[in-house]
């Protein structure tokens, strides 16, 4: 059997690993439009603020591909999938025949459609090329306009500030991180960002960018006077890379529609990661959760099923965490009240914990504050996934989870009997 995987990041890697564990013989080909071995996009902002060394963004080396007997083709962009003849074609004209195909092409950043948005001086923060373009600009410590209010843009703004740049942050909505955290968490974060010295503009959209002599940019935000910056970073969101699948008959909504086994609507073709729109932990409509953990889980499910062993995914559970502007923000599952869902919260030294419930079953949570509170959301995750009730008095939650550990200890962690002497000695029977 010939397996072809398009992509070389979280989902693709998890898939080939899972596949090879089961199937030692089939041939595996990975096709990536980027250079070199796999690296982690998540780390790019950390490199910009010197928390991670540029050479440490790589999460696999060449020996990995060799040991799994993978034929890796880099800088080959797939432009065509021929379902009848079962091959994929790349821009350079190469064809790769497949028996089974995994599409793990991820997503690419989108930009507002305004004049001057493409070209010199305007960056995304998504690829190694972006990083390499931005690093020297960060060295120069000039001024930057960051556009967007998600994880990537806020991380970029923080990295720039930490590197000594003067930072303007333009956000179209009145709220920060609208899609990942609740309104009150967004407000707390906003205060921290203002305290840190970012020129934060909420509720503004970018109208156009003008290029000046010497490479500087003049930016026009709606309703304010134009101002000049050295460069612009845009991170307003990502879009699944599905364009090359047009005409294949593979069903695409927001992303590629997949079932619990990561199968697409076309036999023999699977999808996983940012490009896939799959079942969620809440059993609702299928959704694109463009996050690393979901990519990893879906990749593993896809790889296992591709190797012929049936494995159903219990659905993705969105989870996000970040520390920036001296505050930790994390969210999981449903993070805002809606019909049938109520929330309970608890103030903490550094912020708050909020857990949302449907009846007495937790469905999600938000944490702003310290790291140990993030661990509390971690405890909550199996309860959300398995729809197990837990107390609504959050001050009781820590103890409740501790008590729950006793069950885990009895089940998994092997409580030994009283005293060291009662362990059966070897040869004593």
């Amino acid at each position, binding site marked *: 059997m010939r397996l072809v995987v398009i992509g070389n990041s979280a989902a693709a890697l998890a898939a080939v690993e899972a596949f090879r564990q089961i199937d030692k013989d089939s041939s595996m080909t990975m096709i990536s439009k980027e250079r070199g071995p796999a690296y982690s996009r998540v780390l790019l902002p950390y490199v910009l603020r010197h928390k991670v060394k540029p050479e440490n963004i790589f999460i696999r080396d060449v020996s990995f591909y060799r040991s799994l007997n993978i034929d890796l083709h880099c800088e080959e962009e797939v432009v065509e999938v021929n379902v009848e003849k079962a091959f994929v074609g790349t821009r350079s004209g190469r064809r790769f025949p497949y028996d089974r195909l995994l599409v793990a092409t991820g997503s690419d950043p989108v930009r507002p459609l305004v004049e001057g948005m493409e070209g010199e001086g305007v960056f995304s923060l998504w690829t190694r090329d972006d990083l390499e373009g931005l690093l020297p600009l960060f060295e120069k410590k000039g001024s930057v306009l960051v556009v967007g209010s998600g994880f990537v843009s806020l991380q970029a703004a923080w990295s720039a500030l930490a590197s000594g740049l003067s930072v303007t942050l333009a956000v179209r909505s009145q709220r920060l991180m609208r899609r990942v955290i609740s309104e009150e968490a967004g407000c707390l974060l906003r205060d921290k960002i203002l305290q840190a010295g970012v020129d934060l503009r909420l509720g503004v959209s970018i109208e156009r960018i003008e290029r000046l002599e010497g490479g500087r940019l003049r930016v026009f935000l709606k309703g304010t006077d134009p101002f000049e910056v050295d460069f612009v970073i845009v991170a307003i969101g990502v879009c699944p890379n599905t364009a090359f699948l047009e005409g294949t008959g593979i069903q695409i909504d927001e992303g590629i529609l997949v079932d619990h086994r990561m199968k697409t609507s076309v036999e023999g073709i699977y999808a996983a990661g940012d490009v896939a729109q799959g079942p969620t932990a809440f059993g609702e409509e299928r959704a694109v959760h463009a996050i690393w953990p979901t990519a*990893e889980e879906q990749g593993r499910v896809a790889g296992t099923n591709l190797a012929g062993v049936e494995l159903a995914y219990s659905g993705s559970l969105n*989870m996000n965490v970040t520390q920036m502007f001296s505050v930790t923000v994390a969210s999981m599952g449903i993070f805002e009240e809606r019909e049938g869902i109520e929330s309970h919260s608890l103030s903490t030294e550094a912020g708050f914990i909020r857990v949302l419930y449907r009846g007495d079953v937790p469905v999600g949570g938000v944490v702003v504050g310290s790291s140990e509170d993030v*661990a509390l959301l971690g405890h909550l995750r199996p309860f959300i996934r398995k729809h197990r009730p837990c107390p609504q008095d959050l001050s009781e939650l820590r*103890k409740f989870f501790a*008590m729950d550990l006793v069950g885990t200890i009895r089940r998994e962690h*092997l409580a*030994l*009997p*009283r005293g060291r002497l009662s362990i059966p000695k070897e040869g004593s029977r």
Partner: protein
Amino acid sequence: MKIITINPDICVGCGNCEYACANEQKGNFDIKNSWIRVNFYPADRVCIPWNCAQCEDAWCMRVCPAGAISRDPKTGAVLIDEGLCAGCKMCMLACPYGSIHFDLEAAVSRKCDLCGGDPQCVRACLSGALQFVEVDRAYEFRRRQFDNVLRAMPGIAKQDGEER
């Protein structure tokens, strides 16, 4: 391979394990630097030591976007490479047991590394609630315990006329 076993029934809550861990990991006795934690609720007479279980299928290891978490082939411990850790805290969000802690000074995640094969918490344990034993031996005990439960059930024949 050896594992740390925990028996909450006999833990006395002395906290020695936490001090031993902090001392080994950071060279002081500040228990915020301890990767083992005793959940101590005296009013409820509850006292539960908890440490990383070094899960066989460790989710923290799989979700780490920096590839900083790996398994020590010698001890079986799940290790965080602090040179690679970006401090993103995804592992803390992933761990269902709260076994990963954040080191604010170094801004990296930290967890039990089994002290390279000689866990100091177990050495310092007063009551014997923590033990460091071969996996098969721990399972052997559990199998016997289960056996006993079965034999005590009505209708299950006792073997060799043994009284239990």
